[in-house]
């Protein structure tokens, strides 16, 4: 088994492994960890209330797993903040936190300011647009951090096939992941292709890591996190948890284009500063995911983009058309 394959085996979880919340809370309390939940929002009145109700009831009242729930908003024009406040979340406008730094607008801004505003040793980020919200979205992400001290960054992924046939099935992320991020990682950071869904918006991170990495404020934040945490702490700092199905509104292709463009900017900046732009020439392996039942493995595909020179350089051609 390759190193990468054994990492996948040891660091990939399914949320159902952590169903025992009582035990989880016990270990959390023994380790004296404080956990904060951050919901970054922009016009999410339809879904934010339900998320707060479920998390407060299941993970604060019944099982005290999280210590604070905060909504950090980019300036919603709907009733997002009113609904959130009504159900007992702490609500902040991103622009009110560290106001001297001047405002910037984007989801990454909210995530970054959460580090300043929230007090947890661990911060869990969950998007506020999930309509099938469930406590697993939080406990599935924080559990590896609670049980394993060496894990620093846990990423969610979503994979729930409707039938498990025992046959191999394709797996992996959304369109931007498979078309842009996975090929880029295959070229420049093959280890990071072990993340099944590098762009998912749900992750739990230790403060000691969050305070040491930069935050693109827009689409590139997830990609840059992976590269930066990998460069500073190595692949062993990561884990990933299958959170089953996530239902949210689908984006159209033009929106995905914007997203891809933002990610590409962030990526090039990172690749340049790490001095790895030339590395791509040596790599011809694309790493995709496939799954057999609940086992994930990488599929290595050799794609060689061989080239022919301009026809003018071929002697036979020059002869035939008298181009001497």
């Amino acid at each position, binding site marked *: 088994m390759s190193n990468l394959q054994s990492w996948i085996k040891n660091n990939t979880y399914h949320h159902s492994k952590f169903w025992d919340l009582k035990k989880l809370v016990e270990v959390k309390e023994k380790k004296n960890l404080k956990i904060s939940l951050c919901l970054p929002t922009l016009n999410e009145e339809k879904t934010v209330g339900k998320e707060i*109700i479920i998390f407060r*009831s299941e993970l604060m009242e019944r099982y005290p797993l999280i210590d604070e729930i905060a909504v950090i908003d980019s300036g919603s024009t709907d009733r997002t903040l009113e609904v959130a406040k009504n159900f007992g979340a702490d609500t902040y406008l991103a622009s009110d936190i560290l106001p001297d730094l001047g405002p910037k607008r984007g989801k990454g801004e909210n995530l970054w300011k959460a580090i300043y505003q929230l007090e947890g040793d661990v911060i869990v980020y969950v998007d506020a647009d999930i309509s099938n919200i469930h406590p697993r979205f939080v406990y599935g992400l924080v559990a590896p951090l609670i049980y394993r001290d060496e894990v620093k960054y846990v990423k969610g992924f979503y994979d729930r096939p409707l039938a498990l046939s025992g046959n191999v099935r394709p797996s992996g992320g959304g369109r931007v992941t498979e078309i842009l991020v996975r090929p880029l990682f295959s070229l420049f950071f093959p280890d990071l292709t072990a993340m099944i869904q590098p762009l998912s918006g749900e992750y739990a991170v230790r403060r000691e890591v969050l305070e040491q990495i930069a935050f693109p404020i827009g689409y590139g934040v997830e990609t840059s996190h992976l590269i930066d945490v990998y460069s500073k702490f190595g692949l062993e700092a990561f884990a990933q948890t299958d959170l089953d199905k996530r239902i949210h509104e689908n984006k159209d292709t033009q929106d995905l284009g914007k997203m891809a463009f933002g990610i590409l900017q962030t990526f090039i900046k990172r690749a340049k500063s790490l001095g790895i732009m030339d590395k791509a020439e040596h790599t011809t392996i694309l790493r995709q995911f496939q799954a057999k039942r609940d086992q994930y493995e990488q599929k290595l595909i050799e794609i060689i983009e061989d080239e022919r020179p301009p026809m003018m350089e071929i002697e036979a051609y020059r002869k035939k058309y008298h181009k001497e």
Partner: protein
Amino acid sequence: MKDLSSLNKSLPDLVEKLKKYREVLLANLVMVGEIPAPTFNEERRIEFILNRFAEAGLTESMIDEGGNGVGLLSGSAPKSERKAILLSAHADTIFSANTDHTMQVSSDTITGPGVADNAMGLAAMVTLPYIFEDLGIELKNDLVLLANVKSLGKGNLEGIHFFLDNSTLDFSSAICLEGIQLGRLSYSSIGMLRGEITCSVPESYDWSRFGDASAILTLNEVINKINDMKLPRRPRTSIVMGSISGGTSFNTIARDATLGFEVRSESQEVVERAGETIQDIVMEVSSKTGDHVELNVLSRRSPGGIPYAAPLTKCARKMMDNLGLEPRLSPSVSELSALIEKNIPALTLGITVGERTFKTNETIQIEPIYKGLAQIIGTLISADGGYCE
């Protein structure tokens, strides 16, 4: 709680105390409501409810052979002196599993298919043990929590009938929970006969005859005749023509047509007579047209119940009065009638205010829920104290 009057006085206080359970209650409501539970396919919802019972420390909870979810909150009195109080809420909905069951939560309402009928009733039931424990409320008698299945439509109360037929417990009283409307007080059931009339054009029909060979026309004849039936004003009686279906397209003659109807009356005799008349109509139309017309009786209920002045009704009215609620009396054809058949004094109570039942945008209000719960807890405590016997 020493006596009934001190309980009554403390009710408004209880409403305030219940507000702190908002998230727990609404989380239960959302989670129960988002599990589809069409009649005959309630397993996943029942499983969730059983998990909640187990988490609340109801060690004697189980799924009975009828598929009902049953939880037992043991009373504090010595076993030999204990009776049982039943709190039931039907678990099934009219929505198919393919319907999007997502619940939407706003500051003061919750919207989603079946949220009022009956996710709200179930949520109140599964949250009650948690509230009792937190508030230190302990009943002397056993409280049996029943999420009964196969209740609606063709389910025909199969779940609660199975439970009552097979239970060894001695029930002193029972309360059925419905999500809406707050203030509803049902203590009697009316006589009911529910059926389907199906018309079909025989296979061998002469298709060259023009126009008059439609099952819809035949059914129309039946409907006209039912409409002409003379019904007494007292005892109050009505026939609900509830649903109709038939045919396949604009330009083909309908081969089949079906009417769903319900006869309701305060008098069993009138129900039976109306049933016989409908049977006569069916036979008459059948022989006249040569079409196949058939009456299929799906369910019957007998009228009955406890009187308006019965202790249990009185207790509930008193609770409502103290909470500033105007009791709205209405007879019921649901769970209540199964309990009445077994001679168990029973009531149906609503929990909150809502609208648009039977549609996917069914909506309930959050604020009235606390009063609804206080009324139920108050009625349970007085039933437990023997004030309702």
